[in-house]
């Protein structure tokens, strides 16, 4: 960029005082253009509020992404029942924002991976196959034997391991890879939601899963894109349709790397927030803050119909993709 390396002044300017008025003429044009520019060109600005629908720079509708939003159904309490899942680690190029491809590490081809759900006292059997190019594991949050913790049994590429333990305690949990370097294995995409239903079933609701995540696509240790369940602005371009007549229950987890906290803010309504998806700590609010690895359950009874925004209340995250809409209908 051209800059002045050579600005020189001398203070004896007697013959040049006459230059003043001339200079004024020279700058009149510049001053004019500088002052007429004001605050009145908002018409052309596509701000936060206008970012809805087809104009939003996000990806086309994707069945794989849509599948992540709805958890498998809850099953009644029956101790000892075996619940089987298979997770395959795969290196996949994901479109994490419109037109931006990221070489992700995934469980079953998406980041986040599939929702794992069990009822308390089910026997969870998760077969893990490492089809990726690096050693991986699955580390589940919850109560289980040390040998099932995804810390010691590193699964080499081409190898497999079956995690088997009783599902407990009930609540909202998560899973992620625990191979080192940990930060790399998590931010590359190896994480997902893990729901354990209580023995006494929760009341019926429209159930959604939202895993807050982010992608550092240029490897500088700072996230370039934020979202829930994958691509930036996905639910701004494709709003989530819900009914006002039934409670909306959101299983929310924070798996954002690099940033210490993330948050969820709902427009136009309040929700009950169950910390870690349990009953011990409940609050009524419209904004919750989650540290890395923190999670909980939100229950919303929408009072009104229409489009209601939800987003991280860190404006930066919201404007880098972590923003969406509920389309509430009767």
């Amino acid at each position, binding site marked *: *960029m*051209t*800059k*002045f*390396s*050579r*600005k*020189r*002044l*001398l*203070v*004896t*300017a007697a*013959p*040049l005082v006459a*230059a*003043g008025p*001339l*200079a*004024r*003429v*020279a*700058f*009149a*044009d*510049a001053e*004019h*253009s*500088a002052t007429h*520019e*004001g*605050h009145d*060109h*908002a*018409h*052309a*600005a*596509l*701000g936060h509020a206008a*970012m809805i629908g087809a*104009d939003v*720079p996000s990806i086309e509708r994707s069945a794989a992404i849509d599948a992540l939003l709805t958890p498998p159904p809850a099953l009644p309490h029956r101790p000892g029942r075996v619940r089987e899942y298979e997770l395959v680690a795969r290196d996949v190029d994901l479109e*994490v*924002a*419109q*037109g*931006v*491809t*990221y070489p992700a590490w995934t469980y079953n081809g998406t980041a986040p991976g599939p929702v794992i759900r069990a009822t308390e006292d089910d026997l969870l059997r998760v077969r893990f196959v490492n089809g990726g190019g690096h050693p991986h594991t699955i580390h589940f949050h919850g109560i289980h034997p040390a040998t099932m913790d995804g810390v010691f049994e590193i699964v080499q590429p081409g190898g497999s391991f079956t995690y088997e333990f009783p599902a407990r305690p009930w609540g909202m949990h998560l899973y992620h890879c625990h191979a080192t370097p940990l930060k790399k294995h998590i931010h590359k995409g190896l994480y997902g939601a893990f729901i354990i239903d209580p023995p006494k079933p929760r009341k019926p609701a429209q159930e959604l899963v939202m895993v807050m995540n982010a*992608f550092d*696509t*240029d490897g500088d240790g700072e996230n*370039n*894109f934020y979202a829930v369940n994958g691509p*930036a*602005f996905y639910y701004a371009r494709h709003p989530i349709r819900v009914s006002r007549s039934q409670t909306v229950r959101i299983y929310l987890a924070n798996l954002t790397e690099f940033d210490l906290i993330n948050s969820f803010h709902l427009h136009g309504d309040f929700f009950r927030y169950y910390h870690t998806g349990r009953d011990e700590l409940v609050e009524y609010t419209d904004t919750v803050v989650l540290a890395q690895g923190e999670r909980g359950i939100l229950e919303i009874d929408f009072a009104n119909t229409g489009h209601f925004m939800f987003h991280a209340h860190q404006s*930066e995250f919201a*404007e*880098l*993709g972590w923003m969406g809409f509920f389309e509430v209908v009767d």
Partner: protein
Amino acid sequence: MTTLAERSGAGWRLWALVPLLLLVGVVALFAATGGSVLDLLGRTPPPADEFDVRRVEFKPGEIRVRVTNPQQEDLTIAQVTVDDAIVPYHLDGNQTLSRLRSATIVIPFAWVEDEPIAVGVTSSTGIQTTHEIAAAVETPEPSGRGVLGFGLIGLLVGVVPVALGLLWLPSLRRARPEWLAAFMAMTAGLLAFLAVEALSEAFQLQAGLPSALGGAGVVLLGFALSYLTLTFLSHRLAALALLVAIGIGLHNFGEGLAIGTSFAFGELALGTFLIVGFMIHNITEGLGIATAATEERKVSLARLAALALIAGAPAILGAWLGGYVRNDVIGVIFFAAAAGAAFEVVVEVGRWLRERAPGGLTSGWTLGGFLAGITIMYVTGLLAA
């Protein structure tokens, strides 16, 4: 037995073609199988995938970003951010740019006058190039008023002070030969200072250019071009005053370019104070030309006016070009050319001093004058730093 030396002249000319033909053959062979040769060395690293942001323009409710692909591999524009927020945009040009191709990203945006702003362009591979602007200022459109404004700035910092400096000619004519030599040496010192500054400016600008546009050698190209052209002219024109005027004119072109660019892109708050500073500085350039003009027995008013225009008017052209075009490649070439011209004139003045000055190049008058020229430039530079 015949040796190569005994072949006919025509044969020799044909022989000269042989290396070229063989080169074509080897290149073709490598291109056909080149991939496998490089495979022996292992995988090549991925491309940097960074854009070269050529210019950012601010219009009412709109930001226009001109980007170029500086690398061999194709580069695709995927996402655009303003101050770390993803924004919708449309493109004037292709989404995917091949080598050295450009496109303009048009962003509807209510930018805030005079505040810093950062524009980011993210490639399809997720690499973000961020370009920061110190203060958002509406980019001037070429208009009658604007052209007049930049023209007047050029006139004020270029032609006017040089013309005023030339008015010292009658006084210089009556000066003792020692003093004249000192002033001439001062002119050389002044030009040497300008040359070093212009050269540094050229290298700095060049360092910011994408590597696809060549290395620092382009500075030497611009330098040599003007130095050798002036050398060629100096042995035919003979008039030292004209040479000094040309050297200073090239320098003032660069100065006008820098003023116009900085002003148009919000990098410089041009005020009356700064303009007056430039005028005071440039009056010494007029003094330099006047000193050289004492060589000529009789100088007509028309000739003086011509010298003032040659030395000063390029500032007007530079201001226009810088204000409306902004091209850093042109900037590099002209700063390098200004340095080359200034150095050439230093050499010419040195020759004059060796032949005409009482005591030649090593007299106290000459050495003191040269040092004084550099010192004046340095001190005035400090005042405005």
